[in-house]
Structure formats: structure tokens, C-alpha cells
């Protein structure tokens, strides 16, 4: 059951760009892009907390599990 990052959808809902989020959470655009495209292998609690604070959401809004089996 792979974990999917819904950062793109959350940014769209908040009418926010990745660059603006990067400035707000003090994380590089490159790293956020890795997270957004689902290439990240892990996310730090501090990153999760910062993103949730800026986007005013819960970790569960950002990370969701999909039904597909991880092969």
C-alpha cells in the first residue's frame, strides 16, 4: 500500500506555488519538488509539521495511502 503525497492538490486548493511554500517553510524548492513528485524516500517530522502549519492541514491531508500493492 504505497503512500502518496498530495502536495500538488493542497497547493492548488490554497492557490499557492511551490516557491512560495518553499520560502514559508524554509526548505529548498528542489527538496519540495522531490516530495511533490513522490520521489522522496522519507519525510522529517519537522518538514511535515512546517508544511502542515503553512498549508493549515493535517498530516493525513498531505499523505494518503493508495490501494495499489507496492511491487
Amino acid at each position, binding site marked *: 500500500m504505497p503512500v502518496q503525497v498530495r502536495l500538488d492538490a493542497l497547493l492548488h486548493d490554497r492557490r499557492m506555488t511551490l516557491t512560495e511554500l518553499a520560502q514559508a517553510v524554509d526548505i529548498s524548492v528542489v527538496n519540495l519538488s522531490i516530495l511533490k513528485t513522490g520521489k522522496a*524516500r522519507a519525510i522529517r517530522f519537522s518538514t511535515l509539521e512546517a508544511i502542515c502549519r503553512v498549508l493549515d492541514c493535517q498530516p493525513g491531508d498531505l499523505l494518503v495511502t493508495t490501494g495499489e500493492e507496492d511491487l
Partner: protein
Amino acid sequence: MIAERIVSKIARIALRVFLIGNFACALGFAAAIILSVFFAGALEARLIAKYGPCIDVAQVLLAARLLFGLGIVAAVALHRVLATLLVILGTVTTGDPFTFANAGRLRAIGWALLALQLFDLALGGFTAWFGALHVEFVRWGPSLGGWIAVLMAFVLANVFGRGAAMRDDLAMTV
């Protein structure tokens, strides 16, 4: 940092010197095989003069040629060890040694060291063979350190592989 750079430079020079020495040895072995064919008569006469007419000259020459041939194989294995170490040293200098490529290189060194250990065992066999032929030859004993070096190379290869995987994970942690 300066000390590290000096050690690295000394190691690089030493490895290059060993590589040249090893290449010279391989050439020497090849030359010995060729010369033993061209000067077989003179060699046989010299062996008979030293050990007496009862000596099995044909067997001694065969053993010597086989030994030189195995020496060339050992030199190839040693070249692999030294050249690979030189490449690994280069990655240390550039500041990125914990890579999957280096883990593979260390594994290759492990296999080459294993080949050298097998050569060492064969050398033991040659000692017994020359002994049976009543010909003087070097004393031989099993090399425990060499077997430990083989194990160390494989263990270090695994450590490097794990380190590279951990570094990759860290690089992809946001």
C-alpha cells in the same frame, strides 16, 4: 585534513610503484617461460651439474614453467587489486567514497585477493612438488593474514554498500 592529503598522496605514489613493480614481475615471468624454451639445453645441463644426473630435468622444467605461468596469473590478480585501490583512493580524494561503485570495487578486490590466496595454496603444492624432485625451493607456510584480508574485503564491500544505500536514503529525505 592536510595529514589526510599527505597520506593519500603517499598511498597513491606507493600504489603506482607497486603497479610498475608488479608489471615488471609479470614480464619477468613471461620472459622466464620463453627463455626456458630457447635455452632448454643449457638449463638442463646446469640442473644436472647442480643436482646430479638422477634429477628428472623434464619434470623440473615443467614445474618451473607452470610456476611462472601461475605467477603471471597472480600478477594479473594483483594488478586488479592495486589498480582498483587506486580508483577507490581517487574517489576518497574527490570526497565521495561511499558509493555502490566502490562497494563493487571492494568486492572485486575481495575476489582478486581470493585468487591470490589460491595461488598461495598452489605455491604450497609447488613446494611439495619441488621437494619430491629434490630441488631447492622456498619454504612455504599457509598465509592466515591473506585469508583474513579476503574476508575483510568482502565485509568492507558490504559495509560500503550499506553506507551507500543509507546515504541515498538520506539524500532523498525531505
